[in-house]
């Protein structure tokens, strides 16, 4: 990049790969860094709030449906998905997530958002190819790797616990 006033000439003589490396280094040195600490604090707070709401829902279903705390987990997760989906449909989720980051993306609310946002986006392309075909465009990866991870962990757990 150091040159005699002619970037093009430098590029040809200096060799492209070395110049690319130099420029990439310069960019990563100069680019504004995300506020990692602030993001972590926000994610902690937002994630904590999501968990409190989830726990509240679990307690609610436990009492109302008269089921065990563990069993109440399923309707509670469904409730969180509903909340995430509604917030997405009403156009609030993206604004909240911009502030909360991983605090909203990691819990099941993020999963709901990725599916509903995609379904909304492609609904004009039809029920089958638009919504049906595209809905898992972002969430598909979570499902695939979630299932693979669960499978591996399940096998390890079975071996470790002597369950064979």
């Amino acid at each position: 990049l150091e040159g005699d006033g002619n970037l093009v000439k430098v590029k040809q003589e200096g060799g492209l790969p070395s110049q690319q490396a130099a420029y990439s280094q310069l960019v990563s040195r100069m680019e504004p860094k995300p506020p990692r600490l602030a993001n972590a604090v926000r994610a902690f707070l937002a994630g904590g709030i999501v968990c409190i709401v989830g726990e509240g829902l679990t307690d609610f279903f436990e009492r109302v449906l008269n089921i065990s705390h563990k069993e109440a987990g399923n309707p509670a997760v469904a409730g969180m998905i509903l909340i995430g989906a509604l917030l997405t449909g009403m156009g609030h989720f993206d604004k909240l997530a911009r502030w909360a980051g991983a605090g909203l993306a990691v819990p099941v609310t993020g999963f709901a958002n990725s599916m509903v946002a995609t379904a909304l986006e492609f609904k004009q392309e039809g029920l089958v190819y638009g919504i049906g075909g595209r809905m898992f465009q972002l969430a598909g990866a979570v499902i695939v790797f979630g299932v693979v991870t669960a499978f591996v962990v399940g096998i390890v757990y079975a071996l470790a616990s002597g369950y064979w």
Partner: protein
Amino acid sequence: MASKRIGAQTVRFASPPVILGAGVAAGPMEGDGPLGGSFDEVVPDLYLGQQTYEKAERELMKRACHHALAKARIDVKDLNYFLAGDLLNQLITSTFNALPLQTPFLGLYGACSTSMESLGLAAMLCDGGFADKVLVATSSHNATAERQYRYPVEYGSQRRPYAQWTVTAAGAAVVAAAGQGEGPRITHVTTGKVVDLGIKDPFDQGAAMAPAAIDTMLAHFNETGRSADYYDLIVTGDLASFGKEMALEVARRAGLELGDRYEDCGVMIYDRSRQDVHSGGSGCGCSAAVVFGHLLKQVSAGGRVRRLLVVATGALLSPTTFQQGENIPAIAHAVAIEA
């Protein structure tokens, strides 16, 4: 060598074509920005009464074209060519708009550099004696571009501080051969070469495009024999805040002092202190809106800007190339506009 060609990349017009009129239709956020007052029309929402965002973008470009034709006081049937481009696959905004115009149409893709690619080509058609009047138009729409290049509109994610916000705006201009009317003159065009300095992050387009902008500027200054201070204002298309910083750094290292006369449309179009756009604006509509809506009005013999150099920048990536891990090539086209 061709008589109007003065260098490897630059042409000088024998009889500089003029910009008869220009029009801009912009979205709500752009209207709320510092230049909102200079656009011909600011639409209240991203749908413009249409069913889909794609149709909305089409409507936006149509309105910009109508404003440009009205201000140039000419009729569609006086046009010899319609040159247009946008960011969407297969240039659907441009092609669908060309249908009702029934004018010879050439679709152009230079990503966000298309505004100056089309303006420069229109001037060449006019000075070459191939056309008297040419309509050029470019557009971008935040929701259609985000869908194609990134995520669904409602998807929640945290953006990097150097990420840019795709501008919702369309700009159009009528270029006429010399003697066909009055307006700012297009005197030189420097066509860019594709530059790749190894940037891979699709959110860091400003940094990917900055070297292309400086590369084209250097070619322009070398081949015209002009220096940067010949111009009252030099603007790049959509490098935004961080890209502008990179451009200044690359220019400094190449021995080019741009100083205070250098600005960037992506920085000008939004107020970053109160609008949540991170580094600034991007998209075909960014340079089109700022140049056709705001800057052209300032180009006059006695005004603040007598000589303007617009260097529109384009990041030539597709979702496929960056998913496959390829670099982001970039290009920049410079057009000199003088009172």
